[in-house]
């Protein structure tokens, strides 16, 4: 079977699942009354369909499924098979397609199904004619193949995990429908062969993100978080759209391959800030929205209101990396605009350390992970900014494993803790939930950058590139290194507060602590295995001990980012010893971070409090997330909306109302003119005419008496006159 020509099927599987769930799901998954189904860890949710009973589903059956027990009807089992099954199908299909792609020599396969937006000729910026059109087409190349494997593979594991996690939850079908819809849009995003179709997926995943963040929409905070995510993403999307239109105007196409060849006619914009730089900055602004970079990152921590599998799939592993993917996809453009690349790298580094610093003091287990995600995404943009595109994708790849794992483990913890998310009320869980503990241990080691696990390889390569690449600098490297230390610290703070030390668990919660079911632990174990091994696809080049296959990731992606500029600057001036030293430094920083965290939160729990008291302002600054939300509230919500409200009010009263009133006055004035004209000119003419007629008719009217005899008299006179005339003649 030729998978390559059928890659359009890959997104269709989950779409089918989503359509099935969202259209027919209500019938498949009869909802128990809302007071019975209480999700663990979630406030009682009274779903809008809560009181719906499918035909034949009597209340007695509901009573057989009291709260706290798994109640799985055969139909619910069907949902649990269909939805993950669709993603599994996509995954297998993707594996087949990628395998066949790897057998080809040029490793780029484009299929165009049909023209989606019909062609419309227009003048490009340089005066030439071009055709505004977009295909419904798919492009499989090394870059998108990595993405589809991540999306479908990790997506499948998270779907399986969700079977256990969402088992008690209302809206089971709704959850899986949205999840499948998300996978569909994400696959559209990464498989699209042009920016316009990519944007379809881009908006689609934003929609699913909104729907899933607000999954518990009866909670105001969840609904608000969904709105926040949606609105902040729209801000970025405005940039994306403008960048896309500018691309049409300058390059005349948005097809990735054509864009690449069109860009070949442009030289690098080494000086100044030309049109390509503007285009790149606009696209990057779109990426900051979707990938939660400064200044648009604040929605991601709030997005943790959604169910934990959603956080793992959408807000850690896949959707938030769409921005990284898009910038990497535009590598040919960014390579030509060094100034923009500097912006990207700076924003990435700044976001990385900003988010890491906030993560240091958060107490909500998911929020720590959320800020960690923002921070790691910052790393990826740092890599993109210094021109190390494959490293960014490599980090995206490894991060997808260990961050999804971290989120799923935290979900498992929350599940065990009956919904408790505050780490201050955890502790000592190590032996109670051993599988969760060990898998999370592996993920934390991986993210901290201990050699041998996935996170080390990608993060270390980023730091090395930040130091050594032509666009890199020691400042960027140092910020990255500091972030690595902070990362190790906050991760082990999390581990210590959750799994080790004294238990702070509330007694009534402690009774219910239990390891999660197999549907949840098996994905954890598989992801843990991934977190250990996938890093070996990209070992550092100085590790000459290992053969070529251990640098496979870079070689696999090389065709996607092939560019003379990057190849030439293979960091000739930096010696291997420098790389070894930097590697040692980053490992040392990670170990120091881990040690301090262990010392603070395990051995001497009073130290953090002492420090907190000593530097109270700094702590509250971090605890309140640098007050960025408040600043945005002040500037945009209060400042812009209320100030804007005043200004708009004045505008309304003076300009709009003035316009309306002026129009009214003008109408009245013209009406008056018209009335005068009517009265005196038109009516006058009519009346004058009738007056003339009246005057002329007056003599005749006198004859008209109405009396018979007058008329008879006239007859006689007439006869006599004729007679007289006859006689006289």
């Amino acid at each position, binding site marked *: 079977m030729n998978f390559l020509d059928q890659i359009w099927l890959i997104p269709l599987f989950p779409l089918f699942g989503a359509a099935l769930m969202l259209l027919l799901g209500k019938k498949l998954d009869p909802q128990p009354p809302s007071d019975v189904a209480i999700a663990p860890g979630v406030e009682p949710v009274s779903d809008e369909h809560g009181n719906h009973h499918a035909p034949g589903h009597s209340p007695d059956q509901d009573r057989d499924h009291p709260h706290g027990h798994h109640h799985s009807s055969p139909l619910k089992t069907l949902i649990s098979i269909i939805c993950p099954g669709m993603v599994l199908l996509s995954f297998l299909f993707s594996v087949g397609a990628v395998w066949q792609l790897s057998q080809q020599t040029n490793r780029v396969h484009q299929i165009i199904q049909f023209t989606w937006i019909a062609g419309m000729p227009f003048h490009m910026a340089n005066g030439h004619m071009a055709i505004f059109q977009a295909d419904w087409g798919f492009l499989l190349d090394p870059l998108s193949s990595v993405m589809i494997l991540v999306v479908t593979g990790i997506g499948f594991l998270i779907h399986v995990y969700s079977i256990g996690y969402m088992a008690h939850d209302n809206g089971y079908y709704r959850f899986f429908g949205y999840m499948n819809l998300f996978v569909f849009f994400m696959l559209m995003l990464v498989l699209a062969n042009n920016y316009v179709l990519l944007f379809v997926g881009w908006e689609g995943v934003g929609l699913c993100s909104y729907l899933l963040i607000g999954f518990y929409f009866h909670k105001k905070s969840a609904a608000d978080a969904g709105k926040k995510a949606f609105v902040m993403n729209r801000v970025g999307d405005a940039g994306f759209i403008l960048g896309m239109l500018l691309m049409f105007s300058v390059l005349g196409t948005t097809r990735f391959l054509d864009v690449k060849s069109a860009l070949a006619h442009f030289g690098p914009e080494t000086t100044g800030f030309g049109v390509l730089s503007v285009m790149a900055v606009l696209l990057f602004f779109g990426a900051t929205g979707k990938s939660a970079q400064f200044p648009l990152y604040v929605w991601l921590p709030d997005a943790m209101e959604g169910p934990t599998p959603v956080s793992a799939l959408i807000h850690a592993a896949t959707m938030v990396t769409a921005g990284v993917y898009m910038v990497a996809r535009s590598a040919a453009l960014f390579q030509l605009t060094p100034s923009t690349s500097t912006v990207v790298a700076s924003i990435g580094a700044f976001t990385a350390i900003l988010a890491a610093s906030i993560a240091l003091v958060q107490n909500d287990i998911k929020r720590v992970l959320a800020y960690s995600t923002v921070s790691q995404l910052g790393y990826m943009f740092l890599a993109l900014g210094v021109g190390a595109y494959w490293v960014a994708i490599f980090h995206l790849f490894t991060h997808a494993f260990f961050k999804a794992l971290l989120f799923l483990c935290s979900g498992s913890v929350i599940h065990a803790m009956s919904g408790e998310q505050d780490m201050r009320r955890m502790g000592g869980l190590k032996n109670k939930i051993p599988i969760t503990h060990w898998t999370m241990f592996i993920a934390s080691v991986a993210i901290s950058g201990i050699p041998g696990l996935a996170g080390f390889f990608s993060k270390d390569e980023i730091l090395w590139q930040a130091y050594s690449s032509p666009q890199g600098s020691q400042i960027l490297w140092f910020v990255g290194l500091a972030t690595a230390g902070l990362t190790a610290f906050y991760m082990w703070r999390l581990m210590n507060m959750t799994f080790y030390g004294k238990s702070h668990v509330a007694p009534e919660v402690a009774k219910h602590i239990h390891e999660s079911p197999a549907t949840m632990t098996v994905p954890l174990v598989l992801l843990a295995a991934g977190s250990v091994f996938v890093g070996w696809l990209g070992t550092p080049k100085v590790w000459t001990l290992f053969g070529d296959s251990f640098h496979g990731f870079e070689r696999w992606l090389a065709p996607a980012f092939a560019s003379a500029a990057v190849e030439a600057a293979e960091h000739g001036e930096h010696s291997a010893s420098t790389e070894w030293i930097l590697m040692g430094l980053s490992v040392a920083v990670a170990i120091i971070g881990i040690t301090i965290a262990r010392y603070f939160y395990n051995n001497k729990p009073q130290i953090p409090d002492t420090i907190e008291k000593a530097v109270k302002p700094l702590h509250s600054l971090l605890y309140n997330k640098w007050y960025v939300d408040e600043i945005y509230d002040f500037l945009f919500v209060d400042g812009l909306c209320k100030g804007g409200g005043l200004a708009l009010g004045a505008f309304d009263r003076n300009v709009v109302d003035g316009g309306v009133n002026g129009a009214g006055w003008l109408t009245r004035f013209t009406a008056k003119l018209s009335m005068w004209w009517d009265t005196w000119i038109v009516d006058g003419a009519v009346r004058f005419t009738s007056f003339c007629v009246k005057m002329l008719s007056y003599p005749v009217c006198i004859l008209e*008496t*109405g009396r*018979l*005899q007058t*008329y008879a008299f006239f007859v006689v006179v007439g006869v006599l006159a004729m007679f007289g005339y006859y006689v006289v003649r």
Partner: protein
Amino acid sequence: MYPVTTVHYLALSAALLLIGTVGVLTRRSIVIILMSIELILNAVNINLVAFSRQAHAVHGQIFAIFVIVDAVAEAAVGLGILIALFRNKETVLADEIDLLKW
């Protein structure tokens, strides 16, 4: 004794015509007006008969009988209208009935 010639008849006829015409034009009562119309018709009849006698032809006399029949019919219709009019307007005076004016 002068013989009665056609001219005499014509003179009588002219006198009747004049009287009838003046009656139609000047009398207010519609009944009188109808009677005056009878006079006019009879003036015509005299003319017809007189010329019939002079020409030794019988046509004129036959025609006169037609006119008499016609006069009877006209009087019947006229009086019928008059009664209908009286019922509506309670008058038989021609100058009070000026409905012909718009």
